[in-house]
């Protein structure tokens, strides 16, 4: 059979990755969980009838309803309600959408910045490489959460308060992204150093292909595997970083809560017996981060055994 006639599906089916995937139950389960979470979060309007971000739709008298399977629970609030009468399930799904958007955007931001700098540093070498790599060293000495707090603090200082609530999500993306880029820069530089001495690069140089095209068209596809692996693990880290920042109260505002904000708000009721307000967002965050991590582990084993 001519390989050109193969459909995309068949190409995937015959690949090593697919083979490794169907042989790994953890990968299948975590992918399944992630697909369900992504679907429910991004199509939450169709999944639940409640909109917890619209204060006028809430009734305070519904507040503190326990989960439906407990004695005082109501069937219409499966996971119960929080202190303002918001349905927990709907709030968690809306919140996880914000968490996922922030996580993805932050990782993409860090990836573009880190790979751009790391790749060019590895390719050009010299003083430029030294500056970029020392910059990553300097930043790696600062814990990423501290870096994110710093960025948020500065943003609060320069952005007016009225704008801050609207800008909060972008500030958060920038803060987390800027704290994670050194990882990407280091990995892509290391991979570039290996690739740039290979014959195909020398050949391209000899026939006069421009540096930019060599870097992004020829080298980039060959270093993509390790970047994808740390990108996946970085996503879990970014989601947890967002939750941490929101838990500390510097993340998104409580009127449009993310998972971390929900855990913080529920924290006030830990002693009073209303455990579901903080428990469900927390367990949801654990499942989400754990699934992404398991998928990342599997990708690392399959795509780049050297990172093991």
């Amino acid at each position, binding site marked *: 059979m001519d390989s050109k006639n193969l459909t995309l599906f068949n190409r995937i089916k015959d690949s090593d990755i697919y083979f490794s995937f169907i042989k790994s139950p953890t990968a299948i389960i975590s992918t399944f969980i992630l697909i369900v979470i992504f679907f429910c979060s991004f199509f939450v309007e169709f999944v639940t009838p409640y909109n917890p971000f619209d204060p006028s739709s809430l009734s305070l008298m519904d507040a503190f309803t326990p989960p439906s399977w407990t004695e005082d629970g109501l069937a219409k609030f499966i996971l119960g309600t929080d202190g303002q009468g918001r349905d927990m399930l709907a709030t968690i799904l809306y919140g996880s959408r914000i968490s996922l958007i922030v996580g993805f955007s932050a990782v993409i931001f860090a990836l573009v910045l880190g790979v751009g700098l790391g790749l060019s540093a590895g390719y050009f070498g010299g003083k430029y490489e030294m500056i970029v790599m020392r910059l990553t060293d300097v930043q790696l000495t600062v814990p990423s959460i501290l870096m994110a707090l710093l960025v948020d603090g500065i943003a609060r200082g320069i952005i007016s308060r009225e704008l801050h609530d609207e800008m909060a999500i972008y500030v958060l993306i920038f803060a987390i992204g800027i704290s994670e880029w050194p990882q990407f820069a280091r990995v892509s530089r290391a991979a570039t150093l290996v690739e740039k001495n290979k014959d195909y690069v020398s050949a391209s140089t000899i026939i006069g292909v421009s540096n930019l095209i060599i870097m992004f068209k020829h080298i980039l596809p060959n270093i993509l595997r390790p970047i994808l692996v740390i990108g996946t693990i970085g996503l879990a880290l970014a989601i947890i970083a967002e939750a941490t920042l929101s838990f500390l109260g510097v993340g998104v505002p409580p*009127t449009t809560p993310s998972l971390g904000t929900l855990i913080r708000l529920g924290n006030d009721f830990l002693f*009073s017996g209303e455990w579901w307000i903080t428990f469900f967002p927390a367990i949801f965050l654990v499942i989400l981060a754990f699934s992404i991590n398991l998928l990342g582990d599997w990708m690392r084993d399959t795509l780049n055994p050297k990172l093991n």
Partner: protein
Amino acid sequence: MKPKNLLRILMAFLFVFASTQSFAKTIKWSMQGDSLTLDPHAQNEGPTTMVSRQIYEALVTRGLDMSIGPQLATEWKTTSPTTWVFTLREDVIFHDGTPMTSEDVVFSLLRAQQPTSDFKEYISTVTSVRALGNYTVQIKTKAPNPILLNQLSNIFVMSKKWATDNFAIVPQNWDAGQETFSATNAMGTGPFKITLREPNTKTVFKKNGKWWGNVEHNITQIHLLPIKNAATRVAALLSGEIDIVTDAPVQDLARIKSSAGHKVESTPQMRTIFLGMDQAADQLRTGNTGDNPFKKKEVRQALYQAIDIEAIKKKVMRGLSEPAGIITFPGVTGYTKALDKRLPYDVNAAKQLLADAGYPDGFEVELRCPNDRYVNDEAICTAVVGMLGKIGVKVNLFAQTKSKHFKELKDNQGDFYMLGWGVPTLDSHYVFHYLYESGASWNKVNFSDAEVDAAIRVMEGEVDLDKRNAAIAKAWKIVRDNIAYLPLHHQVISWASKSNVDVPIRPNNEPLFRFSRVN
């Protein structure tokens, strides 16, 4: 090391251990916010006065039963209807050892009348303060003042020499963000003195061994450790890190009560929580209509009737609040049950009122709220946002720490805000003088009514109680009919402490550690 030396060292350790165990009685006290300043005349605010009350004293003071009794003055008489003569105690010395004389009292009263003082409204009727002798002070008032003693119980006396030496002759200008020596240090005559002050972190009070009074407490030190987060505060109490919390979160009272080593006491507090709406500005700072809807009484009433106070009581306050119709509470001169009745909760009527006022689609406004001052303050505001949303008023909540909230409020930055008001004098005059009089310092709704202003003058100078009460009743009726503020509820406070710590609870939420015991 020789065995003999080792034994000596061990003995020394044992002695220190034994002595600290048996003699040092420390109370670790926590609440969500801290005192804003140690300057006794700079900021008239609950927790600030709570702290000042332990280190400073006044001519007269309220005891555990809230009745007025002598403190720095032993006796007083009126030589004419407008002239009071106070005889001072002669055995009082300040924390630095200098004796207190009439000079210090005159200085303190005049200091509290300075423009930067937040206590000037208390004694605005005082026209002159004069020392007649080393231990005699004469106070003259504009007109006969039936509540002068109540007012004087909140004017603390500080050392004139100390204030002069430390450039603190005028009170700290707190509203302008001034920092002075007197804001972080104190020189009073009280039963405790400050030995360490780290704002918002830790304040250490030590027993004043040379205090003039009869020592009823057995405390050597008080540590004030503010903890903003409610759950953290309760965790600290339950783990034994904190001995007493004077604002135990309502949602955790059951949990604290169930602990064998802890107890909870509750009492209706002398404090009413309400919302203010700027009725004078031509345009709301945070509005979207280009005008000021709050100018119309219908709008204010619509907001009033849209608030389901019973739901707030049940869900946010867990039953520990008393819905309010006026900003004063039982026990205050002028309070009546009839005045305290609320307008009914009625969403449809509220919508109709808004439509009648010309805002059928509602409007947008920002609600300013403290998040570390009153019981569940931010949660109340969040609930209000939802309730007003139901009648089409889009409220954006802005909650922040109390020091910023109060400062920006005084700086006239609020369109719509939350405030709580206690009445230390137990007389309606105090409420009117601060909240309703034209141009009063906390009248940030800019309410102004000539009849109310006239009634306030009557309250200040009328000694005939019937006439005075009639003026109070009339003023309450006017402000209530005008819906100058949106009253929410009277607070109920709860103090939670270890079982062996005895700090008598008081309805003004002010602990008096000189009556406290650690058993």
